């Protein structure tokens, strides 16, 4: 599952990100620490607005102009990425070390350039090839990502491709950069269900072939179950639980993870409404006190409203940020739904 040597390739330490919006400050990432291991694929899950995209954008200097890193560090290859200021600094990282696949393939390609040229741009920048040799490399990448007839496809424009095919092209561009880390920001959300599995398979194949470390961002637990070695659950700008796929799916510790798993549609009973988490996520313009999920948590303890829980170790690989893991905490049973995931025979391949 994990690479034999558990080398940390990318390390987030107490990362804080803020945005200024019309004079107000939004605390989007609230002190997140996470180690990404060489060769693994880790999924960051969470609902819309939980900060997953912002979190990974920090690693490439792609935050919007009003966003800034207000604290903490991101260590990659002995450098602290949070000290990078200029585009020139980032050019050492973007593409070359970390590449990204975006959510919507319909808009992430330049409509006026042939797809061949767009891949070639990456090849020339990062593989040091020029002219015919670069073109040859593009052809190879095109067949790699499963696009037939590369000679003809090279000369075609994005509008001549379907959504799934375009996402293959976007992946081809990312791979053509020869990065060490591949970030996939909701790579299948904009795609047809029938295509989603193919794209995930392709990313997995690319990961294997080019020995990539992949970070998925998604709110689709089906995707997670399919591809991830490890899962990090994000809520209101904080990682509340992190562990191996099995640990998070079958032995979740954080009430938010319970709630998230309970709302899997596969667990629904016919003719009964699906489970939904009550309430709304906290407003990040205000300082969050205690456990951010407490107001929506029917089993919340008093201390959840007062003090932010620390990360408790469940096992060497499994951590969760909830007071329930404190030795003094009362025994609270996880809800029926999530406890019985395994018993109900819901396999990880949801």
């Amino acid at each position: 599952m994990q690479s034999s040597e558990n080398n940390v390739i990318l390390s987030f330490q107490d990362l804080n990100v803020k945005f200024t919006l019309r004079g107000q400050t939004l605390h989007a990432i609230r002190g997140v620490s996470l180690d990404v291991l060489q060769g693994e694929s880790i999924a960051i899950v969470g609902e819309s607005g939980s900060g997953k995209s912002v979190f990974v954008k920090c690693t490439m200097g792609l935050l919007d102009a009003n966003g800034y890193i207000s604290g903490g560090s991101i260590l990659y290859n002995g450098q602290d990425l949070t000290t990078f200021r200029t585009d020139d600094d980032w050019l050492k990282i973007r593409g070359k070390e970390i590449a990204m696949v975006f959510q919507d393939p319909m808009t992430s390609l330049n409509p006026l350039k042939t797809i061949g040229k767009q891949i070639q741009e990456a090849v020339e920048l990062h593989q040091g090839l020029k002219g015919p040799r670069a073109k040859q490399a593009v052809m190879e990448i095109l067949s790699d990502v499963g696009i037939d007839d590369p000679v003809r496809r090279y000369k075609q424009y994005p509008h001549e491709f379907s959504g799934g095919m375009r996402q293959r092209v976007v992946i081809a561009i990312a791979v053509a950069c020869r990065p060490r880390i591949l970030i996939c920001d909701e790579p299948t959300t904009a795609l047809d269900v029938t295509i989603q599995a193919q794209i995930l398979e392709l990313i997995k194949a690319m990961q294997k072939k080019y020995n990539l470390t992949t970070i998925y961002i998604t709110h689709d637990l089906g995707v997670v179950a399919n591809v991830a070695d490890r899962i990090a659950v994000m809520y209101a700008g904080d990682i509340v639980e992190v562990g191996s796929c099995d640990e998070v799916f079958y032995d979740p510790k954080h009430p938010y993870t319970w709630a998230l798993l309970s709302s899997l549609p596969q667990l629904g009973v016919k003719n009964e409404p699906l489970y939904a988490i009550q309430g709304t996520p906290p407003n990040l313009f205000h300082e969050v006190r205690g456990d951010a999920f407490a107001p929506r948590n029917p089993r919340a303890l008093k201390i959840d409203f007062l003090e932010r829980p620390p990360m408790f170790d469940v096992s060497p690989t499994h951590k969760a940020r909830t007071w329930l893991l404190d030795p003094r905490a009362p025994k609270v049973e996880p809800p029926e739904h999530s406890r019985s995931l395994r018993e109900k025979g819901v396999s990880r391949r949801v």
Partner: protein
Amino acid sequence: MAKYIVKRVLRSLITMFIIITILFALLRLMPIEGYFENFDKMSETQIQVKLTSLGLMDPLPKQLLRFYNQLLHGDLGVSNVYRRGVAITEIIGEKIPVSIKLGLMSLCISLAVGLPLGILMARSTRTKYKIGDRLGTVFIVIIQAVPSAVYHILIQFAGSQTYVGKEIFGLPMLFDESNPKSYILPVLSLSIGSIAYYAMWLRRYMVDESNKDYIRLARAKGVPGGAISRRHVFRNAFVPMVQYIPNSILFTLMGSLYVESLYSIPGMGGLLVTAIKRQDNTLVQALVLIYAVISILGLLFGDILMGIVDPRISFAKKEGSR
């Protein structure tokens, strides 16, 4: 591609034919005074004789056919009032070179200044204080909001003054074809509006483009900022502008009524107004025709150019879809 162009050209010819016919019909409604130099002093029979000799007493279909036939031979008729008895092609032939010469100069200047200004403004929107963008916007807003007559006069006035006793500008106020210095102010006046126009649209489209996802992808794959501007943003921002550029070029070449009268330039600009005022029917007819042809040509070139630069426009595939 060729099929698309042929189709567009044919369509333009049909439009032209319709315009010519309407123009003919409208001119038959004009008072007949417009065919005479001294209408008041002529007797009824003299008028009849003249009208017959001009062929205006013939049945309308016959006149219409003759009109088409003349046009096909490039004959725009003869001026009756403005310069009696002189062929209109000759009148226009004298005036058009002046307008085109000034127009070409102002065109070069407005593209050479307007486009870089637009790029500069668009790039400056990404900096902290957006100084370039703000200054440029002030300029554009002033040019757009103030009636052009005001800044034309201002340019003429300011440019022709001598300052602190020295000739800093001191440029000639009036146009003189043989004096190159006298070109400067009119060309500046002609350019300043189009500079603002090109800068405004290019900036707008570049800002639009640079917020698109594919620019984010280009940044994410490590393309340097300058290359993104050149290879991705500028090229794509230019596409929506391309359609209107031929039109604006052609009209620049045809001269400006106001600037030409301000600097007393013997160009095309004032001719139509003079012709209408003097009721020179054939001259009005010829000029309206020329302006209509220019509009149609502008649209035609715009469409063709658009088809060349934007691969998403497919040629001649779907019949009658446009």
